[in-house]
């Protein structure tokens, strides 16, 4: 059994809304409402869900870019949210991030050299020569020529920029990489190139990925386990094959049936969900999904379901948060 590298327990993040003349707190955006999961070393956890489900907040909170409202997370047995000082700096080397938009996540005023030297400078690793040779090695690894060092990010295409972003993320040999929609801004033919690169790097460096995306076919391809999120909760969690073959939660079922299938002869039955995602500012009572759920009952409107094992067998985890499974 591989060890767990990350254990997140009951993570909650509420953003205050301030309003009125005195900017008093008038409400909360409930971005995360008690998220619990574990990730094993060298594996990929895919996080899927629609806009506003809290998947990006989850990624940012794990990088300590947001302070959680409550809950805890253990990274390599250390409490991720309480460590400070030297330990925190060490931890920051081990957790890196790849961003969605390669146009905005690279500083246009910095050359690729300074973008790739920066991680080493911040952590005071090596001298200039070492950093330069590392930068060249990283570029080579992500498939860019060494001549790229003297150029600026705007001189590159979207796919090449994402490669630079990946080179920066793996510079310090991280253990965990949070990937927030890393391929959704890329064209189809480039998307597969970047996905292949990420799979290769994972094998070579034994990386653990948290792969956040809305494209379910992409997430399934790269993930070992998948967590489906809806309004700040995980509603279903299991391995990537099972979730597509035997989804249990009505939301997951609808989400999967909504994926357009690239086969004109495919005649699957579309289950079109009515309505929009409710605002995370005023969450529905009971089960958060009941406003759009085709099988909702009075019980769903009153009691919120807990995430529990749906299989009853020990060899496979299949957690579902629904009263009727």
């Amino acid at each position, binding site marked *: 059994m591989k060890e767990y590298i990350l254990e997140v327990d009951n993570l909650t993040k509420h953003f205050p809304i301030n309003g009125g003349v005195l900017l008093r707190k008038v409400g909360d955006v409930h971005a995360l409402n008690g998220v619990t999961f574990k990730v094993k070393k060298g594996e*990929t956890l895919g996080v899927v869900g*629609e*806009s506003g489900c809290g998947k990006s907040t989850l990624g940012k909170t794990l990088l300590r870019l947001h302070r959680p409202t409550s809950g805890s997370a253990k990274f390599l047995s250390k409490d991720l949210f309480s460590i400070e000082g030297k330990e925190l700096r060490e931890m920051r080397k081990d957790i890196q991030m790849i961003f969605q938009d390669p146009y905005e996540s690279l500083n246009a005023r910095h050359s690729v050299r300074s973008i790739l030297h920066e991680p080493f400078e911040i952590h005071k690793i090596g001298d200039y020569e070492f950093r330069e040779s590392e930068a060249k090695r990283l570029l080579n690894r992500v498939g860019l020529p060494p001549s790229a060092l003297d150029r600026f990010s705007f001189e590159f*295409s*979207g*796919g*090449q920029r994402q490669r630079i972003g990946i080179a920066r993320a793996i510079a310090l040999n991280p253990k965990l990489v949070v990937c927030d929609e890393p391929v959704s801004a890329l*064209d*189809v*033919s*480039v*998307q*597969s*190139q970047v*996905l*292949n690169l990420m*799979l290769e790097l994972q094998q070579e460096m034994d990386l653990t990925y948290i792969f956040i995306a*809305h494209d*379910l*076919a*992409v997430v*399934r*391809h*790269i*993930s*070992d386990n998948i967590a489906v999120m809806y309004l700040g909760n995980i509603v279903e969690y299991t391995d*990537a*094959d099972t979730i*597509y073959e035997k989804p249990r939660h009505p939301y997951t079922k*609808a*989400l999967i*049936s*909504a*994926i*357009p*299938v*690239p*086969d*004109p*002869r*495919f005649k699957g039955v*579309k289950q*079109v*969900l*009515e309505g*929009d*995602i409710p605002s995370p500012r005023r969450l529905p009572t009971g089960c958060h999904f009941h406003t759009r759920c085709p099988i909702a009952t009075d019980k769903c409107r009153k009691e919120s379901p807990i995430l529990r094992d749906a299989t009853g067998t020990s060899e496979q985890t299949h957690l579902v948060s629904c009263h009727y499974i």
Partner: protein
Amino acid sequence: MEKILEVKNLSTAFATDSDLITVLDGVSFDLIKGKTLGIVGESGCGKSVTSLSIMRLLPRPAGRITGGEVLYRGTDLTKISLGEMHKIRGNKIAMIFQEPMTALNPVQKIGDQLGESFRLHFPNMNDDEVRAQSLNMLESVGISDIRRRLREYPHQLSGGIRQRVMIAIALACKPDILIADEPTTALDVTIQAQILKLIKDLQKENGMSVMFITHDLGVIAEICDDVVVMYTGHVVEKGSVNDIFENPKHPYTKGLLESIPRLEHPRKTKLKIIEGMVPDLLNLPSGCRFGNRCPYIVDECKQKVPVLEKVLDAHYSKCLKHASFMKENV
């Protein structure tokens, strides 16, 4: 099989300080009455410029149509006066855009924006009729609470509702042709499924023709009858949706279809890729434009520019080796 729109040899160029860049180079295709035509390709292939050229909405003064015809019921839209074009645009041919937030006017109420179509094209309508028609339209695109929506501004609506409002505005005058430029790209999958269903349902009711521009092959497979595949301003392949997906006759189409992750593929395996990237329009390879990325390239491809050739009845490919390239790789 009445052709409602015929695009013949259409070329469009953009002027820069020093050059004239040809963005569309001899694009031809037909839109059949009551059918859906998909235009697919990656960024920079010219799919949006095609729709803007048809609508005569190219950014001025840089963009201009440099050749070819766009025949709508026999009238060449590239030659008629702007005044005549105004009568067709929004009335006979309507368009919906990718980002409903930027396409809608943020400081006008939904009711005013929707009513504008009626006021412009039916000047005889009075306010009550405009209002009744507007409510009608909102209802037909599946919006609830329509009276309140008329008084709301775009920022008060969700992405899916905004796109529904856009569709309501586009369909207000019961157009013959709806051009949809990536209408679901900015939306979540469950909302995308709603909008695709809505477009299909409305098409069944009105019998309009739809030109659907997207980069998502899944969406193409789901709603299109015919497909045009574009690459660097050329049509590289066109045919019925079944022919294109089951028997692609251009290496680019084949590469695109193979590179998308599919639910039935084994996980965590290498995806097939198309090597390299789309060339710069100012620095195109000689001969076939896909040559620098094509796995089947032969010397002939570097010298001869391929033409769009008939492969089967209504299936065309712009590849010198279209007859043989598939066989070598079976």
